[in-house]
């Protein structure tokens, strides 16, 4: 005979969980979803006004991104830099820090990885088990330190981080150019503005090395796994640790947090380091995982700025960022198909990102959505 009271309690608790957990979650997810729908429609109308067929364009983009295993793999590969920089922005914005510098931190991370992969790795020949983690941590430290600069300026001199991070982006862009165009990291043949490829044993392993039949010549690499694990870890840190609590408290209201004894300066420094480190790691993963494995000019197609859209659309939640990064990766991948089949410039994705951002702003101005914001 079944234990009816216990079963009843279970059913009841299940219905409670629907009411208290699942339903609010769907309501919480409603805003990003509606924003996306609205952005796709708006963008479609603009595409239509330009005389292209938006439905044809979207179908072409979807087919190439999710239509095959290879397409999904490519989408994952494309979304990794969006995820890394998106996480970087999300964690900073959570703390009320307007880090617009993911672009520069990404580049500095890539630069560090290139330096390690071309100059230092030769000292450790054929030792991927040492070289790869060392190279990644090099990028983490470099990106983090680059992120610390605006933090120090803010804490000690009261410099607004929006402006300082924008300026540092351009310092980083020109510094990279300095290094690879006439500088010490330029390729040995000195022909173009690019570095040598990094040493082979610093490459990130690909899935095709472990499952050659299933993933033959796919570009899926373990950097994607690293990024997703980091997203999960950051969720834990944000919502289940004292540090995460302090960080969010500063973001919600610096004055109240300060009154509660939380050090704003400490948090600013720590968050900026983590934020920079994440973006830097993203840059290193791109260098170490993807052909041609070298640093070139225009290495980042505005990842750092797109990251703001990625993070805000995800309501600054690290786990949701995985989903939005995937979407932006799909957009990046799909844009090539749109260009090839419909003829519209693939930079239309930048327009799409901007429309998403504007809808995010617009939605937070509407009361219904504001209650559900963040």
């Amino acid at each position, binding site marked *: 005979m079944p234990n009816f009271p216990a079963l009843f309690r279970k059913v009841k608790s299940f219905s409670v969980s629907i009411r208290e957990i699942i339903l609010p979650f769907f309501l919480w997810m409603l805003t990003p979803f509606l924003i996306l729908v609205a952005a796709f429609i708006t963008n479609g109308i603009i595409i239509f006004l*330009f*005389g292209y067929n938006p439905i044809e364009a979207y179908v072409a983009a979807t087919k190439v991104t999710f239509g095959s295993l290879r397409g999904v793999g490519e989408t994952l590969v494309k979304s990794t830099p969006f995820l890394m920089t998106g996480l970087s922005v999300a964690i900073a914005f959570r703390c009320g820090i*307007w880090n*617009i510098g993911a672009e520069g931190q990404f580049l500095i991370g890539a630069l560090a990885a290139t330096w390690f992969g071309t100059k230092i790795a030769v000292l450790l020949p054929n030792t991927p088990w040492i070289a790869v983690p060392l190279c990644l941590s090099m990028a983490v430290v470099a990106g983090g330190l680059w992120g610390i600069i605006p933090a120090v*300026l803010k804490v000690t*001199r009261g*410099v*607004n981080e*929006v*402006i*300082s991070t*924008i*300026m*540092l*982006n*351009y*310092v980083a*862009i*020109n*510094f990279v*150019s*300095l290094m690879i*165009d*006439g*500088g010490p990291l330029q390729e040995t043949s000195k022909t173009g503005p690019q570095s040598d490829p990094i040493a082979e044993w610093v490459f990130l392993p690909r899935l095709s090395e472990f499952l050659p039949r299933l993933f033959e010549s796919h570009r899926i690499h373990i950097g994607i796994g690293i990024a997703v694990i980091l997203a999960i870890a950051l969720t834990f840190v944000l919502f289940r640790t004292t540090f995460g609590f302090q960080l969010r408290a500063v973001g919600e209201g610096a004055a109240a947090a300060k009154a509660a004894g939380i050090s704003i300066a400490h948090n600013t420094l720590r968050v900026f380091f983590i934020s920079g480190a994440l973006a830097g790691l993203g840059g290193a993963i791109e260098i170490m995982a993807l052909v041609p494995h070298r640093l070139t000019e225009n290495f980042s197609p*505005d990842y750092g*700025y*797109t990251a*703001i*859209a990625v993070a*805000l659309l995800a309501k600054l939640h690290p786990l949701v960022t995985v989903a939005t990064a995937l979407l932006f990766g799909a957009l990046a991948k799909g844009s090539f198909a749109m*260009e090839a089949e419909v*003829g*519209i*410039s693939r*930079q*239309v*994705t*930048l*327009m*799409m*990102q*901007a*429309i998403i*951002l*504007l809808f*995010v*702003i*617009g939605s*937070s*101005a509407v009361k219904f959505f504001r209650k559900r914001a963040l």
Partner: protein
Amino acid sequence: MDIIAILEDILAATIRGATPLLLAALGEVVAQRAGVINIGIEGMMLIGALFGWVGSFYFAELLFFAPWIGLLIAGFSGLVTAALFAFFAIRLRGDQVVIGTAITLLALGFTEVVYVRLFGQTGSLQSVPYFKQFDVPLLSQIPFFGDALFSHNIIVYLAFLLVPCVYFFLYHTQLGLRVRACGEHPKAISTVGSSVSLLRTISLLFAGAMAGIGGGYLSLADVPYFTPGMTTGRGFIALAIVIFGKWHPIKTSGAALLFGLGFALDNRFQAFGWDIQYQWFLMLPFALCLAVLAGFVGKAEAPLALGKPYDPSE
């Protein structure tokens, strides 16, 4: 080349390079003085560059007037972009940093889509009527300075004439005083019965139009054609210039010249075979801006209410 000719060349290039930066920065000074931080200048310049060039392209039969119409359209398109900014930043009180980023991304995508629509993927460079060199009578006859200072296209002179105008407006008119008060203490402006939203919107529209004209300069005077992404960060340099110029129109023009010098030198360094990498000069403006912000090169005081949306109910 003798040293005089080199100096003359560098001075002339400095002024030409500074002009688009100055145009955009003058607008930004007014906007920031009103309390709006517009980091979408880059986008507005790009939009202006595209539409200015498109305007001159379609009105090419008017020959002399074509670039003027182009410049007008450039300014207007910048103004429309700024109106979009104003709607989100002032009407909806959204975050100005996010909106500025969105405007820049929007312009980067939009201009490229339009360009490809008009001229296809390969897009051969279409030359349009542009602003020709205009030697100021008499003044251009002065040795050395004549060629360096008074043999430019007309926009260069107009841009530098605007500097005292903006200065006069901000510091010697009642409206200018109110604009500045908007950026320092918006509540005070509300209290005396002026509309903070209106003042900020007007300032922002002015900034947009100026950025558009600055962009138009690039595609109508600097070179007679448009290429996607041709502003190459000049909008952000204009932002740096405003800070370096400490939110003051005259100091801003000095800063624009300094940064123009950076451009002039970087173009010429390799030609002279000097053994310094030109990227140092490209990096300098941004590093200097950081130094100014940190107070190592005199203290810069940003307008108090800069970047803060004004909510009258607070």
